[in-house]
């Protein structure tokens, strides 16, 4: 009974770290463009399939494949921005039009992946499944420890980049006041490019990490991006520590929520949380109550 809770909490933390990575990536992009980049989820899926192709089909080692796949995911993210969002920006399209276009990209690419690799699940795991380590009454696999450590490192790196570097400061400036940022000579297009690069790299990292742990399938990005978006809203949209907090909160809530009921209800729990937040506290845990016209 007791170890059950510990196991669920631990599963929640692992799921939460993946959600947090997706949510940070989503938030980094949201801050500069201010629309819901739903196709973020298909970048996550694509990264897992890049890793699969490199490791299984081309026999390249894990570490190198990890970095190559992240680079490919970054290129994909930037290409989406340049080919679809850029013309929409030129036309000053509304947020909703961006969101629908983003759905379109998502559907197109997800089905392209399905066409190329088939709808069935694939596994990257090579070698036998090792027995997990026992830790505080929970069973933890080596890969889960790697997921946790790598995601925390990536979160810190993303945070340092935005806080400390010149590009990061430019991103914050564009996020706070695009017009003023433009006046002081910050190129908004360049900033958007950088945020898509970083955001997509983080989504890619999340997709590759999860592919080491579980099976991959073409539809995996759908729930993943939704969880990332929910985590961002729960944490406070556009707020990076909020995205981390929201990610872990969501992971824990989902996993502890299924203690007494079947695991199939996880998605419902996540959306229930979203709807409760949208109605009661739409600015999330750490957000500011300023976006009055959005609610």
């Amino acid at each position: 009974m007791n170890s059950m809770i510990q196991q669920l909490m631990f599963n929640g933390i692992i799921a939460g770290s993946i959600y947090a990575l997706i949510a940070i990536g989503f938030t980094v992009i949201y801050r500069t463009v201010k629309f819901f980049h739903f196709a973020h989820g298909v970048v996550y899926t694509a990264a897992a399939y890049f890793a699969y192709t490199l490791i299984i089909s081309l026999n390249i080692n894990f570490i190198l494949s990890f970095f190559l796949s992240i680079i490919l995911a970054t290129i994909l993210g930037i290409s989406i921005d340049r080919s679809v969002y850029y013309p929409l920006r030129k036309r000053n399209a509304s947020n909703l039009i961006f969101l629908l276009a983003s759905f379109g990209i998502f559907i197109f690419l997800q089905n392209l992946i399905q066409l190329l690799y088939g709808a069935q699940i694939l596994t990257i795991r090579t070698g036998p499944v090792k027995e997990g380590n026992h830790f505080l009454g929970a069973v933890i696999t080596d890969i889960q420890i790697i997921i946790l450590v790598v995601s925390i490192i990536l979160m810190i790196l993303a945070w340092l980049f935005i806080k400390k570097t010149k590009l990061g400061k430019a991103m914050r400036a564009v996020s706070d006041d695009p017009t003023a940022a433009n006046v002081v000579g910050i190129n908004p297009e360049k900033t958007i490019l950088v945020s898509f690069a970083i955001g997509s790299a983080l989504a890619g990292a999340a997709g590759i990490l999860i592919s080491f742990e579980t099976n991959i399938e073409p539809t995996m990005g759908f729930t993943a991006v939704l969880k990332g978006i929910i985590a961002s809203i729960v944490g406070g949209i556009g707020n990076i520590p909020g995205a981390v907090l929201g990610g872990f909160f969501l992971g824990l809530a989902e996993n502890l929520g299924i203690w007494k009921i079947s695991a199939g209800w996880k998605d419902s729990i996540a959306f229930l949380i979203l709807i409760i937040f949208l109605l009661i506290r739409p600015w999330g845990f750490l957000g500011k109550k300023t976006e009055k016209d959005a609610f």
Partner: protein
Amino acid sequence: MEYLLHILVIAGIYIILTLSLNLIVGYTGLPALGHAAFSCIGAYTSSLLALNMGLSPWIGLLIGACVAAISGIVIGYPAVRLKGDYLALATFGLGVIIYSIAKNWVSLTRGPMGLPGIPGFSIFGFELSETWTYLLLVMIFVAITIFVMRRIVDSPFGSVLRSIREDEVAAETLGKNTVKHKLLVFVIGAFFAGIAGSLYAHYITFIDPSSFTVMESITILLMVIFGGMGTVSGSVVGAVILVVFPELLRFLGMPSSIAAPMRQMIYGLLLVMLMIKRPQGIMGRYQFK
């Protein structure tokens, strides 16, 4: 020929779905992304009533539509309080929740195994088992839906809907209860989507949750946008083209493992192209603000 009739039946059901969503999205300007949830509720209600209680599909269809309409209040209630992409996200989430219920409430819906053996419609003991007879039935429902939608949008009520779409604050200033109007639009839209779901269930005789995913909702929305938001004829054209056109892939001899993702890829690409080149659709006057 039989196959062509089948495609037309499906197109007819999509016309009803598209028209009912157009009332919410195109005429009132509410970006609802969970329309398949309403047809899911209609389909399951009338199928379960027929299978478990032996109720006639005619009564099931009516009850299914009414249950869907009531769920329109439940889903509409949180949704109408939000705006723009937040409304889209909330209806999207509610769509996922309804789908999850259909999938996980196994003791009622049999979950992913679905409900087989749903009885078809019959009139005075004459069973509508031939596809052409069913096509006739669907066409009657399409005609009723078109008639009702035209009456709604040409009425003073319809003018209020358009005023909410164009400028909600102004509509409120003129003393219109916009929340009540928006909720009512959800109820009417859900009612007709429930009818469409029920028609589908009794035609195919099998339903499972995979027919009512959020992707399905986005497909219906694509039909609305493609045909043109805020036009009745646009919805008819949009639904027919987007149902019939991908079927050509099958005539080219593609196996369904290729044709199914190809069809979705066409939808995805079309959605992107529309947003970039023509967000108001082929016959529309309105685009999302």
